């Protein structure tokens, strides 16, 4: 696999995102496979942030630790980031009279770095332009360094800023020309050789996990969204709120997280589809309500967008440390479903299934995502509008409603533990969705016999649900890409079986492609868990036995899924690769870790 990358760093507010996004869009339109990774701090302006675009000759969902082009919009990057430059890399910066240290100069020599100083202030002054137009200048130079045609950039700028009037557009074109001139005079021979593009991808979507999930929820029939801002769940709230005039959804910015999940619960009880999203701290607040939903057998959908904790933690960074929380958090024993998305694809495609399970099994569902997925920029073929099915499990037929008794609602003898559910307002016998332990009609019943009967009923749903859930996906390398093994194969022998979940999938698959291309005889299989609870371990048991070595990968300190797997099946892993610095796994880093693993 061939891969290059561009990293733009600077203070928040300087326009790093606009540069990154415009370059990304341009490359995508040209059919390049790209992946965007943002780092930013918990401030509005200032701090030190970055936007890295990786470009490869095949689909990627990961970033590398080192970069071919480093763009520093302020001096901070010049002090801390120079080490990310690869051999023969290019440094583009805007700081007049910057004095590089001796160490820096040595680094430039050793790695044959081309250092370019772009006199932005001077150029802005020449046109009497506001600093914000400087972003277009930087983008233009980067565009030139990528060996792209400047007319592509002008078209994109026209698309984005054309509505602001001719004067603004002309100004932007002038800056693009300046960038072109700069590149041609100062960096005539410096150009990155981009990996091969695929014209078919030029109509793909460039989308973050949050946007994908928002569309997925809307696609799944979600009609009410209540949320409280919390990083990295806020972009989902913002997206859905932004689209409300188009979708007609009821959107409420709640006064706190408890309000959000209570409103979602009331709305789903009444019979619409509703959702909320939060991060770990917000989940803590919502947990009592999840217990309520488990008891009254009410569907609810909540997204837990993880960041590094504990407590306030690293608000703008990523991690997977809330997995066990999502499974065991909140009091009492009750049935629940926990699933995790991994990229912009399943952030969308999983949503109809999630709502279906929530309603059919009448239980609280938590969907895990993380900052890396929520804010990562993915290339995504347009979603298939015909695949999703609507399954609600609600009694709506009047003839059936006429037959219902109050005691049907929580009938302990219901098959699979799933008793009939009908909506308030239905012309039928009424029932009480009762938070106390209750009899079949929802009346308080404190007897021992009833407690057993109702607990058995509710927990039986976990067994029924587990049987209905799919097994984890198994990925193998297939040429320049990875594919899912479609059938259970009994003769699959592996050198390494990697097991993980969530955002690690992207990096693991890209790492596998690298490893496989370097050693085609190596047989690596990746088992990816989407459904975490109830946890299916049948296939893991089977395939772990066929692997020479098993490796577990997770962005936590404790290796949470590994603990869960051991609890449920006794299976342990030969090696665990754990990372908990708030950053995602990087493809070169993970490759090195796997290659240097000591399996003895």
């Amino acid at each position: 696999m061939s891969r290059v990358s561009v990293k733009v760093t600077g203070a928040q507010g300087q326009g790093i995102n606009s540069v990154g996004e415009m370059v990304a869009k341009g490359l995508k339109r040209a059919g390049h496979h790209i992946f965007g990774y943002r780092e930013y701090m918990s401030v509005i302006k200032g701090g030190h942030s970055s936007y890295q675009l990786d470009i490869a000759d095949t689909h990627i969902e990961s970033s590398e630790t080192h970069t071919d082009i480093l763009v520093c919009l302020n001096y901070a990057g010049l002090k801390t980031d120079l080490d990310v430059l690869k051999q023969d890399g290019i440094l583009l910066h805007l700081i007049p009279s910057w004095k590089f240290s001796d160490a820096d100069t040595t680094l430039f020599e050793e790695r044959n770095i081309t250092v370019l100083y772009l006199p932005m202030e001077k150029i802005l002054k020449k046109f009497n332009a506001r600093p914000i137009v400087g972003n277009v200048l930087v983008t233009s130079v980067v565009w030139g360094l990528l060996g792209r045609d400047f007319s592509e950039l002008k078209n994109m700028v026209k698309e984005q800023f054309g509505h602001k009037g001719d004067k603004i557009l002309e100004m932007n074109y002038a800056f693009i020309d300046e960038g072109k001139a700069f590149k041609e005079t100062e960096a005539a021979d410096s150009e990155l050789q981009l990996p091969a593009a695929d014209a078919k991808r030029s109509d793909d979507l460039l989308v973050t996990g949050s946007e994908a999930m928002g569309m997925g929820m809307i696609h799944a029939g979600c009609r009410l969204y209540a949320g409280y801002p919390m990083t990295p769940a806020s972009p989902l709230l913002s997206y859905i709120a932004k689209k409300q005039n188009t979708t007609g959804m009821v959107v409420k910015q709640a006064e706190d997280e408890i309000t959000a999940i209570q409103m979602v619960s009331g709305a789903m009880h009444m019979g619409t589809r509703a959702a909320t999203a939060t991060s770990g701290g917000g989940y803590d607040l919502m947990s009592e309500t999840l217990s309520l939903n488990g008891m009254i057998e009410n569907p609810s959908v909540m997204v837990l967008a993880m960041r590094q904790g504990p407590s306030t933690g690293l608000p703008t960074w990523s991690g997977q440390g809330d997995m066990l929380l999502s499974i065991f958090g909140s009091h009492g024993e009750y049935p629940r479903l926990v699933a995790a998305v991994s990229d912009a694809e399943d952030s969308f495609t999983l949503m109809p299934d999630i709502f279906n399970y929530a309603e059919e099994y009448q239980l609280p569902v938590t969907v895990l995502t993380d900052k890396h997925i929520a804010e990562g920029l993915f290339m995504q073929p347009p979603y298939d509008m015909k695949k999703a099915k609507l399954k609600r499990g609600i009694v709506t037929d009047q003839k059936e409603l006429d037959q219902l008794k109050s005691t049907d609602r929580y009938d302990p003898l219901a098959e699979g533990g799933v008793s009939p559910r009908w909506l308030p307002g239905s012309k039928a016998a009424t029932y009480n969705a009762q938070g106390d332990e209750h009899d079949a009609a929802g009346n308080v019943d404190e007897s021992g016999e009833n407690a057993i009967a109702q607990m058995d009923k509710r927990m039986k749903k976990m067994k029924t649900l587990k049987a209905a859930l799919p097994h984890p996906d198994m990925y193998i390398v297939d040429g320049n890409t990875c594919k899912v093994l479609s059938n259970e194969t009994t003769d699959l022998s592996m050198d390494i079986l990697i097991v993980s979940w969530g955002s690690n999938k992207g990096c693991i698959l890209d790492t596998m492609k690298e490893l496989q291309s370097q050693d085609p005889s190596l047989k690596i299989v990746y088992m990816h868990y989407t459904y975490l609870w109830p946890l299916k371990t049948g296939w893991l048991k089977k395939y772990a036995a066929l692997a020479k070595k098993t490796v577990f990968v997770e962005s936590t300190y404790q290796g949470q899924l590994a603990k869960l797997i051991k609890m449920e099946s006794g299976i342990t892993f030969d090696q665990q690769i754990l990372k908990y610095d708030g950053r995602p796994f990087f493809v070169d880093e993970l490759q090195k870790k796997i290659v240097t693993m000591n399996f003895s």
Partner: protein
Amino acid sequence: MSIPLDSNGPSVHDYTCATECTWCDGCGDYGIMAAAKRALTDLGIAPHEVLLCFDIGCHGNMSDKMLGYRIHGLHGRVLPLAAGAKLANPTMPVIAFGGDGASFSEGVNHLVHSIRSHYPITFILHNNANFGLTQGQASSLTWQNQPMNTSPNGIPEDTISPMDFIFSLKPTFVARTWSGDIPQMTRVFKEAINHRGFAFVDVLQACPTYNKFASHEWLLEHCYDANTEGHDPSDLDAGRKIACDTAERVGCGILYKTEDIPHFYERLSPRHNIKTTPVEEVKITDVSDLMKEFV
């Protein structure tokens, strides 16, 4: 909201179920429940046509003592639960019941936001000025110098003046009644259910076991019907004065009401031209148009 008055319509008996009531002798909840059933049937609302939401408390034990679609949720959280349900199906009357313990402590945040949000629901406050179900702790509304479960010397905090608090949030419907006057409660509940926006009903409630200060006898002596004495509920200033000035007498009835203020659902411009309810709109939805901006 048009509700047909039909002598062939629902009866109080339709709301009755076989579960035995568990309240203490003389508890105000008996009267409140009776009035709730009467109000619903007077309005022609059958049990399957209403959602009754309960908080945790003695009042919450009403949830399985009458019929109707009911939900017995968490302590302090009945308002957002009821609001979510109402916004999903605005055509259905939603009534939230909560105690003063929950509503002025655990859930006071929700009370503030429910009033300012103007959720189109009815809120019946079971105000017996203590936490009854957990055995008589003082609530934020307990009078000063009253020895209670965890405050044998009286509460060290100030007592909240609930009506002052409520009026400061610009409500559109404020009523007060008390548990011994079923006809008055019935009248008040009916008007509350018919109100356009958020209807706040403070029901002073006898609690013979724990509340020795605002007892049934005390309430009988001090409460009077302000509407009968000429109070016009459209007069905000007069209403607020009657509501807050309870030094000698406690004014009851509809204290303030306006039907001119749009409620929360009406304020959502995305819903303006939509005739269906969110419940009716659940389907797999084509989002091809939404994808366009990402190409």
